[in-house]
């Protein structure tokens, strides 16, 4: 069974953590840590000789952080199954790691069983591995909502202003009616234009009627 141990590279800037990880992974069956580096440059140097089976990547690193490293990999076509190991447990971070091509996410206070499961999972499956206690990333989080739904989500205040604009009222009048400063109205208008992708009042009126915004 023990024919070909999977090679693992660690990228972690705290020596004690990477030493601990090394010895832990050595104790797992079928895995071998072939290199531990502490920054992106050293990692790239090592990768020029050949890619490992698994990369265990910390996010907080000097120079380039983990996210930037993932992005570099993707842009430069470096395909290496990566397991993110970090202290952060935030949906946005998990979501972003996933979208940048990481294959799993582990918290630094995970158990050794969790780490072993994660390593095994990453070599066998393409599916994203969530470590113990890791928050689930929302598949379609609010920031990533599709453009059209996003664009017609007018806030109550914006709706009021769109109504006024469609009635042909001018900015100073609207400010007077709503008892807010003209600058605020002007900014709202600018925002609404951006949101709906229009650049004139006429286009705004057309858009509003076509999409029954009001």
């Amino acid at each position, binding site marked *: 069974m023990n024919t070909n141990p999977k090679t693992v590279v660690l990228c972690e800037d705290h020596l004690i953590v990477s030493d601990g990880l090394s010895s832990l992974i050595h104790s797992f069956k079928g895995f071998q840590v072939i290199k531990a580096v502490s920054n992106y440059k050293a990692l790239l140097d090592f990768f020029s000789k050949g890619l490992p089976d698994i990369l265990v990547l910390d996010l907080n690193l000097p120079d380039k*952080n983990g996210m930037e490293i993932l992005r570099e990999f993707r842009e430069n076509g470096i395909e290496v199954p990566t397991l993110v190991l970090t202290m952060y447990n935030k949906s946005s971070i998990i979501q972003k790691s996933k979208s940048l091509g990481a294959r799993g996410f582990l918290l630094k206070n995970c158990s050794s069983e969790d780490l072993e499961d994660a390593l095994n999972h990453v070599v066998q499956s393409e599916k994203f591995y969530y470590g113990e206690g890791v928050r689930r990333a929302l598949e379609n989080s609010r920031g990533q909502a599709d453009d059209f739904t996003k664009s017609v*989500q007018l806030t109550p*205040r914006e709706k009021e202003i769109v109504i006024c604009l469609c009635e042909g009222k001018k900015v100073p009048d609207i400010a007077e009616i709503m008892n807010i400063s003209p600058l605020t109205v002007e900014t709202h208008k600018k925002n609404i234009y951006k949101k709906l992708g229009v650049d004139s009042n006429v286009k705004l009126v057309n858009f509003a009627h076509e999409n029954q915004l009001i």
Partner: protein
Amino acid sequence: MKTNSSKRNLGLITGFLFLGLAILKAQTPNRLENLRLYGELYTSTQKASPFHLNRLSDFKEQNDKRSFVYLDFAVSQAYLDFELLNPNTQSTTYTLSFSYPFIEDVRVYKRKRNTLKEIGFLGLTSGHSPNGRSWNTQITLAPHERANFYVVFTKSEGKPLATDMNLHTKGRFDQLSALQNTLIGSYFGLTLISILFALFIFYATQYSNALLYALYLISLGVYMAAYLGYINLIIPASNLDNGRLLYVLAIEFSTLIFVLFAQELLQAKKYLPQLKRVVEIIIGVQVALRLVFHFITPSLYEAQVALFMKFWYATILFLVCAVIAEIVVYLRYNKKVGVYFAISYLFMTLASVFMLLHHSFGLVKVTFFGLSQILFASVLEILFLSITLSLIIRQIYSDRNALAQKLLVQQQKFLNAYVQGQEEERRRLGAELHDNIGSRVSNIRRLFSTKPNKKDVEKELDQVCTEIREMAHALTPADIQLVGLAGVLEDLFQEVEETEGLKMQFNTYQFPEDLDEEKATHLYRIVQELVQNVIKHAKASTVSMQLFGHDESLTLSFEDDGQGLSATDSGEGIGLQNIRSRVDQLKGQFCWTPVHKTALQSWSLFPLNIPEFWY
């Protein structure tokens, strides 16, 4: 009390100056020397050329009681006859002199029976320069000789002529000239010192109005030099008329500069901006018109002279009144400077009015030692203007010092606040480390010293990890550089939804992902603050928050459907102040509109316009 005493001093000074002049004046009149009082003046609107005894019937007696020669706009020629007796046993030389430097054509004839012999010819058209500061000519009488003389003035229409006419023995004339030259020299000395003073002030303080003042003094000096006859001495005899040109230019130019100087000094731009604009237009029109009439179309000028002069007087009157109005307004804001300026203005205006009345209408004559009052008034004017300028500079300096002092105090305050904040944070962190993490770690240690239960130890260690992470996160949202502003806000809102049960709607619209970290941190803190506000005060159920990336600005818009802010909640809390200071640091704008209307109310919204590229 201080202003009172300085006002009294001021009163005393001016009082003494007036008194001194009055005493000097009382000593001067030597009526015998004023020829005008001893001869009759006959005028004609036609020129008799050459002047001849046969033509005397063309002239008619002017019959005025003036102590000087005045020929009004329409007069072309005039003569004055007088009889002179030499009481001495040796021959005596008298000097006949005229105070006005721009007389055009004056001839002096001695009558012998029925013929006239020209014994003197002077004026701008005579073709020779005056043999002294003023036009003068010598008359010599043999022992006990009695003779009749005619002084004939010829002038162009449209220009009135007013001049003193004095007859002195030569010795007395030289004596008087020496005195006058000393006085005039002192005047120019004062002018020169004041110019240097103004330039120095400008150099030292960069107060640009000092430069205008220096320019005014220079043009005033040129005007005075022309009026006192010095210009006639230095320009070629064939072009004496240029002296008068320079005189008119200097009047107009110094008026222009003075008005501009006064506007600046009285801060008309701040206190009476509309009047200032009108004044500038009027003065421009006046100067332009006068120059055009005088030099480009002299014939038109002569024809329309009455109308034009009326217009000119009107504009001058307007300017005088405008500056008075500005002084009155200015006095309300700055009494000390205003008073000194008002006094110097009073001297200048009175002197100018006297000049105008004297030369245009032959109404007033005020002279001291045979010198026009304008010289003496000008001395006082310059003195008081220089004092005014010094006061202004002093005020500028004390204002600057006060400001610097204030800034220093402010800086000290900031520093204190900073140190205090740092101390506070240290205390908080220390307490947190000691109370929570410290106690948990000792608890773990205690667990080890007894029989270590793996589950318990793990649980405790997990707790410690979580707490350290939370503390670190509270200190800096370090993940901003990992996931960007939108990412950390996403997390923040997720947390708020879970813990507070608020519905958070969050969208970004072309918001730059690689916003620099410092700005992103500010924005993050602002949103944190706004969310805290909503949780604490708004009783809202939904919050809509949006980030927009515009071409040259970013907008952060934040709305909630809470209860709004009632009118009694006046004053801004620390949270809002915090937001404002952050927005200020981003050079942004913050609009915060509490509204209460229908069911869905939005009570806080703020666009943050940052007028620079952030990309």
